[in-house]
């Protein structure tokens, strides 16, 4: 095997393929990359037995062949070589020699036959979706999925393709994120799959990293295997494959309150700030903050005016405290319709949800202290919403 590629192409390919490397594998082959040179293209392939990434780059192939090399070492080495130069890979015995202007390296290899085969998707449901649309929706939803494997189904993102749209839902049982975006091409019959949250985030990242240049007009081609057990995302020269999670996603519609009693419109930056400051005092008390939406008390406005919101008539008071550390309390002006009320949340959930909303203002809606609250952006065309379950405070 012998081929020549540009340092820039190879460096990007290794970065992308690195997403599916299993660095701490007890099977050494899984921390290696499979590099295969055929005719005029070079493929870099990695897998961690959950996902697989295949990147195809152009190069000059003198002799065809396959080899596996340590992914991490190769990535570090290639990325630091002089840019704008060509790199020559040549297999010499059991080693691979890598040559570029001024540098030479020899990498030990493991036989390419050892590299696990990636299950092929033969036929299936084809979907096309805009890369930016997909990446944004994935980032808004997937963070709410469960981290621990106690409930495997909740570590995934439910994707329902139907009627030219995809609805994505993720929940860890404490909060729930939803977004719905248009797809360019969808299977005629709707399908419902659960993609591991980690995989969907990786796919979104690859889509983002390629930006407009690699991906053909920024479109992701998705294929879902006939048996609904595997999915592949094809973005330009990158193909990312993942297993799907089997099982039934819980009925998430029922957790969304049918109607809300109070609606508040809050400046997002002010909201984040008031939550961050109060959270300093919440660290020793289970990260719990108290939010109080109310009409502004008359005396308050004159004596200690709220931090933001100018001359708004209603306020949001955020407080936290623990007996051992003291307490903090912040107030901002908001627009409120409805009775208002008190509700207590884990501040991490609030910050994470506020972090994915891009608008300058957000809507917060609630029913009562013990019913879920809802966060949304303010643009009417956006379908995104986030539901958080409050906690019940007892002294």
């Amino acid at each position: 095997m012998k081929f020549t590629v540009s340092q820039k192409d190879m460096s990007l390919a290794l970065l992308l393929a690195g997403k599916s490397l299993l660095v701490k594998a007890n099977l050494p082959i899984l921390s290696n990359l499979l590099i295969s040179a055929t005719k005029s293209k070079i493929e870099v392939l990695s897998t961690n037995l959950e996902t697989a990434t295949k990147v195809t780059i152009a190069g000059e192939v003198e002799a065809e062949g396959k080899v596996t090399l340590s992914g991490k070492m190769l990535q570090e080495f290639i990325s630091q070589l002089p840019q704008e130069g060509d790199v020559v890979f040549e297999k010499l015995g059991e080693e691979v020699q890598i040559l570029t202007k001024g540098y030479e390296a020899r990498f030990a290899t493991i036989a390419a036959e050892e590299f696990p085969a990636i299950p092929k998707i033969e036929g299936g449901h084809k979907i096309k979706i805009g890369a930016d649309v997909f990446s944004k929706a994935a980032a808004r939803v997937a963070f709410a999925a469960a981290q621990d494997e106690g409930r495997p189904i909740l570590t995934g993102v439910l994707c329902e393709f139907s009627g030219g749209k995809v609805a994505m839902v993720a929940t860890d049982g404490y909060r729930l994120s939803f977004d719905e975006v248009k797809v360019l091409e969808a299977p005629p019959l709707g399908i419902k799959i659960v993609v591991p949250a980690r995989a969907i985030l990786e796919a979104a990242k690859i889509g983002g990293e390629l930006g407009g240049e690699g991906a053909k007009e920024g479109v992701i081609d998705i294929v879902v295997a006939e048996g609904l057990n595997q999915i592949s995302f094809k973005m330009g020269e990158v193909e990312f494959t993942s297993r799907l999670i089997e099982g039934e996603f819980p009925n998430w519609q029922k957790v969304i309150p049918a109607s809300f009693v109070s609606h508040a419109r809050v400046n997002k930056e002010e909201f984040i700030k008031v939550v961050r400051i109060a959270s300093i005092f919440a660290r020793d008390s289970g990260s719990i903050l108290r939010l109080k939406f109310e009409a502004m008390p008359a005396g308050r406005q004159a004596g200690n005016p709220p931090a933001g919101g100018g001359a708004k008539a209603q306020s949001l008071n955020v407080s936290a405290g623990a007996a051992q550390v003291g307490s903090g309390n912040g107030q901002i002006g908001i627009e409120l319709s409805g009775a208002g009320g008190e509700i207590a949340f884990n501040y991490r959930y609030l910050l994470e949800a506020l972090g994915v909303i891009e608008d300058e203002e957000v809507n917060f809606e609630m029913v009562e202290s013990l019913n879920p609250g809802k966060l949304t952006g303010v643009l009417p065309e956006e379908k995104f919403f986030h539901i958080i379950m409050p906690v019940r405070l007892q002294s």
Partner: protein
Amino acid sequence: MSGQKIWNNILSNFKTQVSTSTFKTWFSGTFVLDLKSEEGRDLLVVGVRNSFVREQIENRYREVILKSAKTLNYKKLSVIFVVSQKEKTPPTKNGPLFSGRPLDFITKSKSPDTLSISHTFENFVVGGSNNLAYLAATQATTSLGSLYNPLLIHGPTGVGKTHLLQAIGNEVLVKTVNAKILYVSAERFTNDYIESLNNKTQQAFRSKYRSADVLLVDDIQFFAGKESTQDEFFYTFDELHLSGKQIVLASDRHPKEIARLKDRLVSRFLGGMACGITFPDLEMKTAILTSKSKEKGISLDSSIIHYLAERCRGGARELEGSLVSVLALSKLSGGRVDLEEVRAAIGRDTNLNSPIVTPGKIMDIVSRHFKVSSDDLCGPSRKSRLVEARQTLMYLLRKQLGLPLSTIGDILGGRDHSTIIHGIERVENLCLNQIKNDEILRLTTAISSN
């Protein structure tokens, strides 16, 4: 030989031919789904964790596995691999968002004075015997500390007093995040008080009880005879009441009937709203049973529910008890029960335990209750205390045993049947008064229980 055993044998042979890490990566967690025999050939279906693993085993290790099988003399065996989860995910809870019950977050130390969140107004079955108490309780939560303060709920055991008390606490928590709600039994209040005296921590005791926004005290009859606890409770009560905090009390009888309870406490307890709960009627019992069985996730035939409701004389707790027996019965018989089985099982139980009620027994109980002798009951004396006891006895003999008026007359020393009618009517009129009603209730409970 079972499929799993065959697979284990193959694996232990195969293990010697590959490295440990290879074996672990690809074969740990494989398991046998099925072993089929068709036309002299055996087919072993093995589950693996995902398609990546399956692909690798199929491509790389299939032949080696079959070779291992041959060396072990499983000549006619073929193996196929399918992706499968070892066990279906247990139907564990999906988290508070799905159960609709928020996590509790207790700001200070965990104390036993907390509410059980399963007692809410939503799952309280309302009927004729308790609708006044229910209404008062819901009203009290909407205007805390002002409308019905204190609210006193009294009634025999097992009718839902504690449920209502806790429902009030839970409802207040729904509306405010941080109200300080204190739910204690009178017994706990007493113990806390004694402890504070022993440890000289009266200050802490007072700040605990006098800082509550809502104080819920259960079983206040327990205060009877505890003089200094009564004094302490009196001051606590007054302070909270004056500062407009809501107080809700529950008792198993009307405060006036609690012996050795100081008058000033009795008058304060009755200074707000006092409402009684009596045993549920048949329709309500049916409703309670339906709601409880729904909570337990079983569906019972309406004839069984009706039978249980008719059979059970006590309150909700006894109903729940009988439901639990039926549940156990249905587990024994694989999920299905019919009325006959229930009748056989429960009927047997109650027949063993339920006492046989005789006129003599009723007379005994009445004479003990009124502290008069049974000879006096049948005698000619017309002292007012005796008359009341005698008339109550007439009423009970009629209502409990359904005896003819003349027989009752004979039992009570040859009285005329019109005397009996008059006596029964008199007691019925007295029963319009809650105190007499409760007295009768306790007598009937005593008759049917011991």
